[in-house]
């Protein structure tokens, strides 16, 4: 009597089974491997990076990702005994970083991740591997803007809801016209067309943007950072063992100058130097606090 309906229901049920068999199983496998892998050897490690920040974390399609964060991640993991083909890259956009660590979607995050107390409540940090600072990007022919105090009456661009945008609002809001966009690439088009006079965020992000081929030679970083942003490695809460291994690796890479080399390689062609005062002798966090 009801054969057509039964067929459809059966098909639907079968389809659901196939679907549920696919995705969750696959992710669970890798997560367990990683936990067991620990100090390297077998298994793979999932690393969260930015996909949209040239010079730091950048990836087009399935090409291998590039940038300073990516290179530091590779170097740190190499110290920990992982081969490059054991690393699985995942995009971790700013608002999702804590969630991804808590849900086990990633094992660690190298994504311009500033260490703050509020974030530390949900995740653990190793590092920092680099001390960034908020700075200003201007057109190469601009000579009047030398620091944040010269921005009075000028037009400025930053990213919606980001720390730099908030800093500017807090410190200079009365005198500065601020436009907030979804990403820094939009800001750069405004800077290029002349609608804004400056773009502000962490110095190394600006250097990476200015170093991209599209904008070669058009912009320069002013070079007077006015905040301190310690970039750390995000780890799931309570993973003290990994934290200590990462710290050890970072210490070694700092001592032998590898991090400086990676930085230079990723900001080639831009007039930019990291804040030497802050970056010599970075004090690493104590794990498990």
């Amino acid at each position, binding site marked *: 009597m009801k054969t057509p309906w039964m067929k459809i229901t059966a098909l639907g049920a079968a389809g659901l089974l196939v679907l549920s068999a696919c995705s969750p199983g696959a992710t669970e496998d890798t997560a367990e491997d990683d936990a067991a892998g620990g100090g390297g050897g077998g298994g793979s490690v999932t690393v969260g990076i930015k996909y949209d920040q040239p010079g730091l974390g950048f990836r087009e399609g399935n090409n291998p990702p590039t940038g300073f964060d990516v290179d530091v991640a590779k170097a740190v993991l190499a110290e920990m005994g992982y081969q490059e083909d054991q690393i699985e890259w995942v995009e971790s956009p*700013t*608002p999702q*970083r*804590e*969630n991804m660590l808590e849900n086990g979607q990633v094992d660690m995050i190298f994504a311009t991740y500033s260490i*703050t107390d*509020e*974030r530390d*409540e*949900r995740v653990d940090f190793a590092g920092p591997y680099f001390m960034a600072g908020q700075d200003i990007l201007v057109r190469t022919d601009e000579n009047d803007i030398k620091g944040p105090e010269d921005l009075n009456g000028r*037009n400025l661009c930053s990213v*919606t*809801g*980001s*720390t730099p*945008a*908030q800093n500017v609002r807090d410190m200079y809001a009365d005198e500065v*016209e*601020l*436009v*907030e*966009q*979804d990403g820094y690439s*939009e800001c750069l*088009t*405004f800077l290029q*067309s*002349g*609608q804004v006079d400056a773009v502000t965020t962490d110095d190394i992000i600006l250097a990476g943007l200015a170093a991209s081929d599209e904008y070669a030679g058009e912009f320069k970083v002013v070079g007077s950072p006015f905040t301190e942003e310690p970039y750390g490695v995000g780890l799931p809460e309570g993973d003290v063992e990994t934290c200590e291994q990462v710290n050890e690796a970072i210490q070694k890479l700092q001592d032998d100058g590898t991090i400086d080399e990676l930085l230079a390689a990723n900001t080639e062609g831009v007039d930019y130097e990291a804040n030497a005062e802050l970056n010599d002798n970075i004090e690493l966090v104590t794990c498990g606090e």
Partner: protein
Amino acid sequence: MEDILFLFEQYPIWEGFWANLKLAFFSAIFAFTLGVILALFRISPVRSMSWLSGAFINLVRNIPLTVLVVMGVLIFWGQLQINMHPDFDTNFFMLATIALSIYHAPFFAEAIRSGVNTVPLGQAEAARSIGLGFFAAARLIIIPQALRGAITPIGNTLIALIKNTTVAAAASVMEASGIMRTMIEFNPNLMVAIFLIIAIGFSLIVIPVGLLTTWLSERLAVTR
């Protein structure tokens, strides 16, 4: 609870929701006016006008709102360098209002047209038989009845518009969803409280609109 109070102290949440309300208010007025005009064109006996309105409605209705807003900022402001106001905040508020109005006008037009379809053909014939022209008939007979029949779809469009004001964040307007992003950036430890504030805030704005719509649609329904 403490967390929620802390967030209210720390961030301009009220100003954010106020910006959403202002955007919704101005956009609703412009979009509704434009929608009535489009609907009139659509039902007009002049074929070319009807076609023009249909083309505009189908074109705009199928462009995602985000694309309209981003186009406004990146192309209209960024590349063509058209400043409507020297003050950035006002300039972007105007830009967002224009984008929201253009986007929602076709939805209002279609809502009104659905109301026109509820008016029996006899009404139009009767209007013509006593000597009224198209505009007089539309203004005195058709549109008043159509609006009363279209309260529910108009209310739905209004609710969609209110929620869509969050897209104005892409046009650099400081509103609730942008403030939500700021809060998540600085206080990821309070994620649940942040979500609750924004969700409840919008519910408090939207639910009364829904209730009002239902009440009005019952009260104003044309009894036939």
